[in-house]
């Protein structure tokens, strides 16, 4: 991936993720997060992992975030001013994060090869065929357990969000 493109996408993702944590209205935060997810998907594609990049767009930006949006509407959240006071905690949080970033960057930017430079990979590196071969051979058990996990997630989500008979009629639109 050319360097100028990477810098542009990195700046975009950092600005939008700052938007996630600093916006007052939850829906604006959510849209900033959707933008971050799409930029990260583009970064995946730039790294050659095209299948995972598009899966990120389909699953994360297209489904999970819509779920968040529905919950924000159900709870009817309004724009809330950022919590006032607790300046000490905010200052410590910001400084701590900045220190963590500085330390991690100092470590990460000077890694030895093969992380230090970009070298070419096979043309079908990110293809769905190779990913499927890996998933169904080395990671087969994890794959099967994940399907059970999704089933449990669906049951749990429905059970938690359902209103009991005593609580009133089921809310449906």
């Amino acid at each position, binding site marked *: 991936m050319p360097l100028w493109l990477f810098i542009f996408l990195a700046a975009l993702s950092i600005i939008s993720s700052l938007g996630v944590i600093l916006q007052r209205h939850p829906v604006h935060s959510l849209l900033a997060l959707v933008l971050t997810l799409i930029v990260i998907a583009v970064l995946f594609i730039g*790294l050659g992992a095209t299948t995972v990049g598009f899966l990120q767009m389909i699953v994360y930006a297209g489904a999970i975030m819509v779920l968040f949006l529905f919950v924000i509407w159900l709870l009817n959240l309004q724009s809330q001013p950022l919590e006032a006071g607790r300046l000490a905690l905010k200052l410590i949080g910001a400084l701590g994060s900045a220190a963590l970033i500085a330390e991690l960057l100092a470590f*990460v930017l000077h890694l030895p090869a093969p992380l230090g430079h970009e070298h070419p990979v096979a043309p079908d*590196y990110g293809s769905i065929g190779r*990913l499927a071969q890996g998933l169904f051979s*080395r990671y087969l058990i994890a794959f099967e357990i994940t399907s059970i996990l999704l089933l449990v997630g669906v049951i749990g989500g429905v059970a*938690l969000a359902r209103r009991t008979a005593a609580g009133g009629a089921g809310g449906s639109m």
Partner: protein
Amino acid sequence: MAPPSYFMGLSAILFCIGVAGVMLRRNVIIIFMSIELMLNAVNLAFVALGRAWGSVDGQAIVFFVMTVAAAEAAVGLGIILAIFRNRATINADEFNLMRW
């Protein structure tokens, strides 16, 4: 050319922004979104590492992280809905019943 270590640097920055979001915001939904941001930063690191070694393992792990994040988001949002029905608030500071 952008080497994979730059991508890992970006992943570190996004992760720390997510941590700051979890620590600084009190709205439970925004905390949840910051957690999703952290998960995505880690996904980016995995893909960068997979690219550095030319193996498919990075992408397979990202596949599983995405799936687990989807299930976790569904259940977590169900929990938030249940909490909201009980307390009518989602300010994380108000859930202090079990505090000393």
